């Protein structure tokens, strides 16, 4: 599909959804619903295609004996176990006890453990950023240090004071900085989207 056609589609669907939100009209609502349903189907298809591509890639790695064979076997076995548990004859799908066991006993604890490893890797990254001697790294680590102290779960008046200070720091300095970042990203995205829609390109495009 050529670029002007994509741009035209984006503009038309965007305006359609906007009009549907602002104007109460049954016909408009039905057309907008078709666009939304199409987006849902595309998203579902993309998700399935992504999973299929991952499986195919790992099988290909195993077949050609390249990459990480242990990782590839784990991915393929994990996918096969879940597919068999959920789709075998007589299975009740996502509510099947075998699927539930795979989720509760393996998937969720493994995911949480991987996230828990961030504790170690984040501390390592913080030390390395200090080792580079950058001012930004120093400020980042000092901020993390202060926030960690404020979040210490002490009881009594000291704990209450720390909790109040933590709430204030999360709501105001940290919150405002992150909100500023989010607003900046949103503005940048809006400007970039408008440039794409209007066909305005920079000299380097």
């Amino acid at each position, binding site marked *: 599909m050529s670029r002007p056609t994509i741009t035209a589609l984006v503009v038309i669907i965007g305006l359609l959804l906007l009009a549907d939100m602002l104007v109460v009209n049954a016909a408009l609502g039905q057309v907008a619903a078709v666009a939304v349903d199409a987006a849902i189907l595309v998203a579902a298809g993309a998700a399935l295609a992504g999973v299929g591509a991952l499986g195919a890639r790992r099988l290909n790695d195993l077949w050609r004996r390249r990459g990480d064979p242990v990782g590839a076997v784990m991915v393929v076995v994990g996918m096969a176990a879940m597919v068999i548990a959920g789709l075998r004859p007589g299975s009740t799908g996502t509510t099947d006890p075998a699927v539930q066991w795979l989720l509760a006993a393996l998937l969720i604890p493994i995911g949480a453990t991987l996230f828990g490893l961030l504790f170690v890797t984040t501390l390592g990254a913080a030390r390395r950023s200090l080792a580079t001697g950058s001012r930004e790294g120093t400020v980042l*680590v000092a901020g993390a240090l202060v926030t960690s102290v404020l979040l210490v779960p002490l009881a009594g008046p000291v704990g209450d004071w720390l909790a109040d200070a933590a709430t204030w720091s999360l709501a105001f300095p940290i919150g405002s900085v992150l909100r500023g970042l989010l607003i900046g990203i949103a503005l940048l995205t809006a400007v970039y989207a408008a440039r794409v829609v209007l066909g305005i390109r920079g000299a380097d495009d």
Partner: protein
Amino acid sequence: MIERVRGLSRAAPILLIVALAIAGQAPDVGWLRAATTDSEGAERMTSVLDALADEPLVLIGFDPDVGTYAEIRPTVRALLADLLARDGRLAFVSLTAEGRALASAEIARLGRGEANPTRLLDLGFIPGAEAGLVALTGDIRVDEGDDGVLAREVEGAGIAAVDAILVIGGIDLGPRSWVEQVIPRITEVPLLAVTPTVLLPEVQPYLVGGQLAAGLITPRDGAAYRQVLELGNLERLVEPIEPRQLPILVGMLIAVAVLGQALASRTLAHVRSAGSRSVG
């Protein structure tokens, strides 16, 4: 000496796990506490729940992610039990794959806890994230095999039947998407949220602005909310043990020590180099 330091660095993760395991087995100490004496988040949540209609139908957007779910899980389970204790009817829907996996596990857990099955409805997974949310405001599709009263009510009236929306958020999809895509398309329905702390900067303005009626965002808010709950025989649905504070304290002290040591070394090196420059 350098070899010894390297060996210590390699062993650090294992030493950390051993320290946390020991702290996890130690008896509770009175000077540690997760909840604060007053939590605005917990008070707001309780007052919004108190104001709901009788037998409220609560649509639960269940989209936490596996990584951060451990932080909010005790609060989520307590809130679900609280809603059921208030004769609430819960309709679960997920828009992320991880959320769906966790919702499925939580619904199964409620079933094992003998929660009233006529008060639970699993709307399953809707792909498409924001597009899925927009579709939810049009009509809600229920499993054809489900012919319960709750299923028929939700299918017939759609989102208009809902008395409140509770978003269990995660990094992929949280309250922001619901505020942007759902709230402008429906009439006044209180939007509640439970999210990990990492989403606080994003969620806080919505709480202040009133788009979110209430939220339990930090572990302290969650602990304060759990502390005042009276669930009667539904106590069985909450986590039997509150998160232990001693392992959390040990982890935090280790983090503070590591960061503090690195920062002190950096400051010392900076001062030394400044001193040598001034002497030179």
